């Protein structure tokens, strides 16, 4: 029977080898499973010809945006509001509170979210209700007489505006 010293040594070998194998696999698994922080390349979507964007009231438009995430590239329809009175600023229709879509109310001249009753002024700023910030503006540009927007989404229910990928 081997003495205890030799036994301890014999126990160290398999333990060391197991640790090495496990470390290799765990290291690869960590890199493999780590969430991707790659932001998909922002693409420009057409909103409307500039000639149509007139008046004082926000104008609702549907845009088509392509969103790439993981192995899929999805074509999605989104809604935005154009503010012709604010130099054609474009606001996302997604309520910054919990992500429903806000709608414009002509009579009250304000944005209203029907889910939890958040209200926003005509320029998108927060007036009352549970939302913690105003409506989210989106980057825009003009190209060949057409207003274009880079559609993006933001983390819900934060005061600060944090863009998602």
């Amino acid at each position, binding site marked *: *029977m*081997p003495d*205890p010293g030799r*036994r*301890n040594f*014999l*126990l160290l*070998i*398999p333990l060391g*080898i*197991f640790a*090495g*194998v496990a470390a*290799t*696999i765990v*290291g*690869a*698994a960590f*890199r*493999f*499973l780590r969430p991707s922080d790659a932001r998909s390349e922002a*693409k*420009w*979507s*057409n*909103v*409307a*010809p500039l000639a*149509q964007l007139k008046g004082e*009231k*926000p*104008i*609702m*438009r*549907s*845009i*088509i945006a*392509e969103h790439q995430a*993981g*192995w*899929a*590239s*999805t*074509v*999605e*329809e989104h*809604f935005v509001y154009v503010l012709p009175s604010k130099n054609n600023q474009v606001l996302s*229709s997604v309520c910054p509170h919990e992500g*429903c*879509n*806000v*709608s*414009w109310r*002509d009579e009250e001249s304000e944005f*209203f*979210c*029907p*889910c*939890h009753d958040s209200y926003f002024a005509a320029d998108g700023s927060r007036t009352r209700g549970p939302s913690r910030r105003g409506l989210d503006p989106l980057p825009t540009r003009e190209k060949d007489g*057409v207003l274009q927007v880079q559609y993006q989404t933001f983390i819900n229910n934060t005061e600060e505006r944090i863009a998602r990928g």
Partner: protein
Amino acid sequence: MKEEQNPYLPPRIRRWLSRWTTLEDIERSLVDEPSGGVEAWTRTTAGVVAMLVVVQAVTGVLLAFYYVPSAESAHTTVAYIEKMVPAGSWLRAMHHYGSQWLTLFLVLHLAQMFWREGYKRRPIGWMSTVLLLGLVLAGGATGYSLPWDARAFFGTRVTEGIAGGLPLIGAASRNWLLGGLEITPITLARFFALHVLVVPALILLILTARLFVFRERGMVSDAEERRLEGWMFGQVARNAVVAGLVFLALSLWAAKFHAPLGPAADTAAPGYLPRPGAQFLWLFQLLKYLPGRLASTVAVALPTLIFIGLASLPFLNPPPLRKMMAKPRRNIGVALFVLGFALFTTMTMIAYVEDARDPRVRDQLARQSKEEEAFRIAPFSPLRTRTSESNIEDELIDTGEEPAASPTPSGSPTPNASPSPGGSPSPSTTPGRSSTSPPDSYITNCSGCHGTRGQGVFPFPRLIGVSAKPRRSVEDLVGIINNPAAYDLQPTMPGFATKISDAEKQEIAVWVAALKKR
């Protein structure tokens, strides 16, 4: 005797473990009979097999975090693992080559067990190892189909052919395997379920039984047990060393050689020459020598016979056989082993040599590997999903508008979005103009979730065609607007009882009920 066990653990932990777990019994039951010298090093195949099984399980689970077993996504997600995910290529190569190495080491394990007449001393252990080899081969055959490239398609064809060669139940088993008469998305789902659920579950069952149940019950004296324990520690260390070396070799191999992945199955060129994984090459080569109808039968019968023969080795000792041969088990066993081993090695070698010698085959295989290489270095191209787009098309159809008939205020479509979506006319410029336009109050209160034309905005439901469902009459729709809770909706909807006038509710309900598919 208790004091002498586990001298390397603090007594307090040892006592706690022995009180609350059966680890001590398990440890004792795992002690094998001793042997010394060089032979001890040859008895390390079990450790390698155990290591490779664990590697297969872990890498397989990891791959499942990205792989999607659908005909649309399978190839794209495998390409994503291969090209985009860090360490994905290495993990997939570990899984791919690991299964081949596992087959090899199981054969070696059986060979050394055979050499020591393990089938005689531990019949159940022997049979379960033979069964394990069969399951590992089944795992390889089902896994081959999952990348859904040309190689996978032809691999599935061969598996199907082998299943079809079973006597009597051939056609039925082929159809059950395919889920129909052809290789379809159903086939992929079946192979996936077999590969990730059925086969691993059976392997786990067998391994657990092999380690903890299928053991001989023996009485050993205390002195003998201490001796065994000492021997076991040396043997665990030997197993670990060899397993570690094999793991290192496999890691380097997987880092150097990618697991094969060709372009998607539908792009296969007509002259495509399929080649199976290394562990099946012998069977593939064998099929070349057997004429048509016979081939599939023999391809099934021969391996089955070898397997059944090996598995039943412990019982091949009846009196008549004993009369004919001095040692029937040993003689039959040697014959089977030599036959199997010779078949396995010669056929595998011939397969390689033939492919290398025939210039046309060589050229075609070179072309294919060049294609695979080109595909591997080509940038990843994502799967295009069109869910929302088809919603947009529906929208045009439902309102009876032709894309060309209505001006498209949203301008030209984005480069990659086709067909062109007709932009919905803005509610603030064209309110209620035609019978298909929604009422203003709908736009204000409902369109945020249900879309300007009732097409729905994910995750909220489409309203088009909703009146065909039960409890969705105009009255019900007004009821939903007033008190959605009474209708048990998922996802839930806020009530609008006081937010909209009764006339407007009626107007909305009538308009929604009229939304029908053309």
